[in-house]
């Protein structure tokens, strides 16, 4: 199983991580190794087995519908690289 350049590019795009040509080759090699490791799994018979998402058989607790959070604007805006008029600023979002 080889990771084509196209596949690497696609995965990098989905993950929003820049990967140049040289890196792409290195990454591809390493990923193929990991994939080989993972492939061991696919041979196992799991017919009729339920997937396990959580260790314990517990269910979702519910929260009372009340406003409990404070206004943390001062703190949160200070943590951002670029803000203006209480908004977080990013390059223009085009639809």
């Amino acid at each position: 199983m080889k990771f084509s350049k196209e596949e690497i590019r696609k995965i990098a795009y989905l993950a929003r991580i820049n990967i140049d040509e040289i890196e792409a080759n290195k990454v591809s090699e390493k990923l193929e190794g990991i994939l080989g490791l993972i492939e061991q799994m696919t041979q196992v018979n799991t017919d009729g087995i339920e997937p396990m998402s959580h260790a314990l058989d517990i269910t979702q607790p519910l929260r009372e519908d009340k406003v409990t959070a404070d206004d943390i604007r001062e703190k949160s805006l200070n943590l951002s690289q670029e803000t203006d008029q209480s908004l977080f600023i990013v390059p223009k979002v085009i639809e």
Partner: protein
Amino acid sequence: MDWDIVIGIETHVQLKTESKIFSGASASFGGEPNAHACLVSLAYPGVLPVLNEEAVNCAIRFGLAVDAKIAKQSIFARKNYFYPDLPKGYQISQFELPVVGEGNLSISLGDENKNIRILRAHLEEDAGKSVHGVDVDKSGIDLNRAGTPLLEIVTEPDMSSAEEAVSYAKKLHELVQWIGICDGNMQEGNFRCDVNVSVKKKGAKKLGTRREIKNLNSFKFIKQAVDYEVNWQIETLEDGGKIKQSTILFDPESGETREMRSKEEANDYRYFPDPDLLPLMISEDKINTIKSEMYELPSQMKASLIEEYGLSNYDADGITSNIAVANYFKELLSCNVSAKLASNWILTNVFSRLNELNMDIDSCPLKASKLAKLISRIEDKTISNNAAKKVFDEIWDQDKSVDDVIEQLGLKQISNVDEIENILNQVLKDNDIMVQEYKSGKDKAFNALIGQVMKASKGKANPGQVSQLLKEKLAD
């Protein structure tokens, strides 16, 4: 070439809760930018979601209202994509196991009803907003809305025209307000429709490729957008072109739809069950408790209005068209007036006055109890229907009592048989020609004679009595 239009609608309904779906931040609309963005809304490292009970209750109420299956167990899933108004880089939604399953919603098309099948409804969180115009190549992100609870309601592609689409949207809009899960304020973005449109040759089995018109937040826009899109698709196909599956936006200025600009590749959302949330279990008991706390649904009320009170289909529709009207009607009934009169007065007199003044029934200045008084004066024959209209005008937005106005305008009708007989005899004497015409078969003359009596009595004679007596007299 004849074409079939196929439409399915996905509606995002913002649920009426105090706090957000996965955090304790305020879910209220507006507010200074980012004033309602808490630690969880901002997706700081380490924060975790906890599910709002009221959001679940709203979903259950909706499921009950459309007769749908409510899942005993449903799962929250992450929908992964990058967008600045989506702080975690994923939206918590539901994928394979939604909270509400298949249901039905009936829409009225004139005299007929059509059933629209609901495929599913699921809970999810809303994204924030990007604000433009901060700088020409920058956008500002406001995360107040991020995390507010949504119920996404998906239909089967059962609608076959723009009119049906609008009718469904309107019906759904009323229903969600009726059961108290949404404010229905479309300007505030409380209720947004994504409309999927495709066309196929008439009678063809295979569906055409659909395009999805996103974020329509008014009924007018839905009609315009669907009309435009249908024409565009038909023209394209008739010209030999192909429809590409895509997401499109409606531009109200130009009245046209256009493809969204981004996305060189289709987004792969990589759905998987959210490991920070556990399976949501809903017991029979819970469903029954919520059911018992719900008011009757519009469809149930409509049925009982027709059966119990003999209202027409059309009138019953009108009274149950929205919960404010229904409540006004119920109040009238509680004052012991007849359902038919109550319904007539609301649907004609009250509505026409409200329309004139561009108001809705929530701000109606005429209290139901006062209108009930007026109606009772018709029922006890103190005044005639026509006289009542005059009283109505006076009491609409003024602090006068019904009886005072009747007194002031001298509208008490004459019901005394002797008095009426006197007037009647005089009229018959004075209108011999009409009497002869009636006797020679001209039925119209009867009404003309009644008219004369009413004129002579200055409109005060009880028309019912007059008609009765006149019939008797002319039978001689």
